[in-house]
């Protein structure tokens, strides 16, 4: 049981009309593992995240999580089982104050089951979570409406919303994009900590250097297909990858 994978994606395919966004992809991830997903623009990374979280339904293939087939469950039910995500395009609740954004995940059945986030305490839990992802304690930022927060804070807020759900698996869709080097450097320890806590993490990234430092394993997508899998060095060495992706990027 200890070594069985937490998530298993099996031959999953997604077609949008004529486009095959994800083609027969298979992979696994274990507890405490950090899996990187890379690939050129439009290679199907976000679609893969949407398939795992239930925002799009697969054309064929299965997904098992905690040994249970989840491929037909709606998104909120997958969250209840322990899958949380961030969105590439951040999706905060703009009219709410930053910390109030977290009240919504804290109202979910998942949180009630895990901890019983009782009414009235949720505000405190929310403020603690924001501090955890790098909102300065006692600054006013946490109380500002999300609509006026800069990108760096919105990304952190997105991460906090996922962490609030006590996830076993977190999918981070280009969390680092649009952030400065310093901001990325300050978020990496937060991710490392989540891994130490035994959570499985899937990081979709374009920022290869930072990803390669922390990822245990990497899969590479191109035109919806998995063209390589391995640790950073193995992936870099692969011919297919050089052709499809890294080759195109050497300036």
């Amino acid at each position, binding site marked *: 049981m200890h070594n069985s994978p937490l998530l298993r994606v099996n031959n999953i395919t997604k077609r949008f009309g004529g486009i095959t966004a994800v083609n027969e992809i298979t992979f696994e991830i274990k507890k405490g593992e950090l899996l990187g997903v890379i690939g050129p623009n439009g290679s199907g990374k976000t679609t893969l995240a949407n398939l795992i979280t239930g925002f799009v339904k697969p054309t064929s293939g299965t997904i098992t999580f905690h040994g249970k087939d989840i491929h037909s469950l709606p998104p*909120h039910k997958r969250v209840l089982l322990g899958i949380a995500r961030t969105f590439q395009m951040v999706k905060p609740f703009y009219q709410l104050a930053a910390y109030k954004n977290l*009240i919504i995940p804290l109202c979910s059945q998942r949180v009630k089951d895990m901890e019983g986030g009782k009414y009235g305490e949720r505000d405190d839990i929310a403020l603690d979570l924001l501090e955890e992802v790098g909102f300065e304690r006692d600054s006013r930022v946490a109380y500002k409406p999300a609509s006026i927060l800069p990108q760096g804070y919105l990304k952190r807020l997105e991460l906090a919303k996922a962490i609030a759900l006590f996830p076993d698996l977190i999918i981070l869709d280009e969390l680092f994009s649009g952030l400065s080097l310093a901001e990325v450097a300050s978020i990496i320890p937060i991710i490392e900590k989540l891994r130490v806590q035994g959570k499985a993490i899937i990081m979709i990234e374009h920022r290869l250097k930072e990803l390669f430092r922390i990822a245990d394993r990497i899969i590479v997508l191109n035109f919806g297909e998995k063209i390589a899998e391995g640790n950073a060095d193995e992936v870099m060495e692969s011919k297919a990858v050089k052709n499809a992706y890294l080759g195109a990027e050497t300036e």
Partner: protein
Amino acid sequence: MAKRKERIDRGIKVRSDDIFALSSWREMLYLSSPRVLPIVIILFLAIFLSPYWQRVLLSVAVFGILSLSWDMLNQTGMISLGQSLFFGIGAYFAGTMNHYFGWHPFLTIPFAMIAGGLFCTVILMPLVRLRGIYFSMTTLILPIFFERLIEAARIFGGTEGLTGLQSLPYSWLELYLPLLFLLIVLFGFRRFMASDYGLVLKGIHDNDQSVKSSGININIYKAFVLFMASAVGCFAGAFITHVYLFVGMPVFALDYSILPIASSVVGGVGTFAGPVLGAFILVPLSEILRQFGGLRIVFYGMFLVIFIVALPDGIFPYIQRKYQQFERWVEVK
């Protein structure tokens, strides 16, 4: 040098936000008057009114209730163009129960709220998947559908309607029942939206995908909101049935759909207090304009436009801002 308007919280607002509010009468008054004043006005206004204007006040209450129902749906991202559905369904549930089974109004009204509320929820639930204008258009069609159904199938009195229904046992109830109900719903809804569950609804309005990815079943929340809004709207219809002692096809009229929207827009969408304030302005205005006969609708439309252009956020948010903040011009370099 350019100038910019700056808004600053009034000192008394800041003090009253905190526990210090308990330290002086002035602060306590500042905090409580926005709640106490409307209650006093709504409940005691009738004493000073002629029977004719009491009748208008009754109408204000009914439209105020429909506006509250509209604003509740709106705050969850459902823009209803068919408030008359709730009004009409409530009216027919109460009317038929009274006509065919002789139920007392004290029974038909709560029954119409619960059964009518459930009925509307069941019809509207399949529509909540529709976004924006698609949801709205369908709500516009539904009341017309029921109106034509009753006409064509000749059920529930057909075009004649059902007459001779039982009146409320005490005539003072005809005014105070809707006014009390209006107050309860107003403060109840405001309280609910300020709770954590209200936040979830605001979240659904903002971004439903983000709510789903927060592990929340948005359909349950939407169903709950639909039921609350339907039940409240059904109350208005059921109540009116026992005032007019009649129920017929006019209960599905467009007025009951349009006026709640106009009230909400004029008063301030998303505040509950605004839509009620809007009803308090628009319904009497429409009465005053009666003397202009055919030109009534022209003047009415003009006033609507003036209100909306002058205060696009609505009257209530404007008053609230003045109450809580003062403005001054500052120079910016």
